[in-house]
Structures are given as C-alpha cells and as structure tokens.
C-alpha cells in the first residue's frame, strides 16, 4: 500500500475538521469544496431529508439538485438556514489513517468518543471527501 505522508495526513485532518465546522455553521460553500460533487449531493440529501419528508415542494427541489442550479441553490439556502439554527457541536479527534490503495485513504477518527471514518480520494492532486472511496483497491 502507498505511504501516507505527514503532509497528506495534515491535509486530510484539516478537511475533516473543516467538514464539521462547515456543517455546524451551515457553510455549504466551504463544504462543497471539501467533497466530490457526488458526495456533496449525498450530504445535502441527508441533511435535507427530514424537511423533504414533510414538505413536498422542498422534496421536489432536493430531487433536482444535480440537474438544476436554481434548485441546488434553493436547497442549499434552506439546508444552510436549518443547520445554523440547529447546530450541534461535536468533539472530533483523528485517530488513524489507512490506505485503500492508490489515491484513496480512510481517515479514522472519533466523534464524541464514537469510532467514525471518512473516505478520501485524490483527484488531480487534490484530496476530497469521497463516500465511494471506501472500497479497498487490490
């Protein structure tokens, strides 16, 4: 497995902490820069799920985020507002790094003492959160 340098570890750690602060503050503009587009949309869907369950109009908007920039913006505004008013602080600590093969790493960490992990992939020299990068490459 490829070596994970200290520089990469620092980059991934900073991304993780920024992920949590962005979610807490409803800063989706920053959040979107930390993730692959696909993972960002998955995150928006998770964060908007409860509202979509009760609000048919918002559900339609959320369904269109990857085909309509207008709907993406509407969804982001609503989700950001919700995050700002319902923010939760977590105690997050990086514990380990695990290579999943070339250009993909699992970052292990604790969230309020519960074991968690975040997958990252390297695309064009930039490491991003990538939910699809959890599979180990042979």
């Amino acid at each position, binding site marked *: 497995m490829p070596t994970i340098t200290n520089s990469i570890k620092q980059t991934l750690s900073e991304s993780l902490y920024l992920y949590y602060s962005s979610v807490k503050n409803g800063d989706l503009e920053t959040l979107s820069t930390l993730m692959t587009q*696909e993972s960002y949309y998955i*995150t928006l*869907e*998770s964060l908007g799920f409860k509202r979509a369950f009760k609000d048919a109009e918002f559900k339609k908007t959320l369904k269109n985020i990857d*085909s309509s920039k207008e709907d993406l913006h509407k969804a982001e505004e609503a989700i950001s507002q919700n995050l700002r008013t319902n923010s939760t602080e977590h105690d997050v600590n990086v514990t380990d790094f695990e290579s999943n093969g070339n250009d993909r790493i699992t970052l292990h960490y604790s*969230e309020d003492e519960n074991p968690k992990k975040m997958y990252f992939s390297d695309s064009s020299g930039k490491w991003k959160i990538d939910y*699809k990068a959890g599979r180990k490459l042979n």
Partner: protein
Amino acid sequence: MSKNTSTTERRKFMKMLGLGAVATASSAFAARGGGNGGNGGNNSDELTEEQKDTLFYIFQEEKVARDVYITLGKLYPDESTFANIQLSEQEHILSAQVLCERYLMDTSMVNLSLDDAYVGVFELDSMQKLYNSCVELGQESLLSAIRVGVEIEVTDIEDLEHASEGMPSDVVNVYANLKDGSLSHLAAFESAEKSLLSY
C-alpha cells in the same frame, strides 16, 4: 463510465427515499449500472472500478434501511410489519455482500452485527445522519413510521428499475430479486397505513 454517469448512480438510500436527483439504487441502491448502457445487463463478468465502488457503497447503505426497521419495530412492537420486513432486509444485505465478495471486494470492515450496540451505529457520518432522520420521523407517530417505510420502499423500487443497466447478469438477477422484495414490503406498509387510517 463517465463521471456524470457516476453521479447519477449515487445514493441508493437517498434515492430509495425519493430524494435522489437521479433514479439510481443508491440508498436502497440500485446503482445505475454504468458502463455502456444496455437494458438488463451484459454478458461480461467484469465490473468497472466505478461500478465496484457503487456496488460497495450500496452494500454499506443497505444497513441503514435494515437498522431503521429494527429500531422502529422496537418502538412499535405491536406493528408486525417492521419485524417481518427487517428479516428480509437482512437477506438483502447478505445478497449485496455476496455480490461484493464475488467481485473480490473486502467487506470485512463493515460491521453488520445485529447486536443492540451496533444497530443504528454508522461509521460514515452521512449514513448516520440519514438513519437518525428516519428514526426521528418515525418516533413522531406510528403513522409517520409506516410512511417512512413507504418512502424507503417506493424509492428503492424506482431505483432498482434503473439499476441493472450495463451490469453483468448476476448483478441484474440480484437486483431483480431485491425489487421483488421491495414490492412485497411496499404492499405490507401500504396495507398497514390503510389500516391505521381506517380507525
């Protein structure tokens, strides 16, 4: 498969929940298979790396639906629909796991234990948030819990209808079985909803 196609293949569970922008199998996953298209699979025994990633993600996401049903079943023990369906959901997970392992994917890092300490516990934050949202909605009332089940199954069916494109025949067959199961689950939840509303 292009990156755009990959995007449309995401989120089996979210899709399953009717939230995905694309009809895929992600959350309940039926990953839109990718590759060169075609309906109902192909005869090659190969998956692209992106198809493997999607399949593995779907496998992980299957646990969300199972654990939602387990938790809601405990919350509403007199409503047998959850208990009946969670057994089937466990079979879905195992089907997806077998499929992953057939394509030499290591599934050992995904904890599928039915122990209370692990049900509803997800290492990926997005899946934890989704599970939490489903359970919070289900806690509001039995009717809301049943409707969470309806949403999950409706989306799953929609996604699975598109999931097989470009996939090898063994994947197509597994997805067909999953869809049959979801149709049965949907009928059960709709029956339970109708029964509740008739009171």
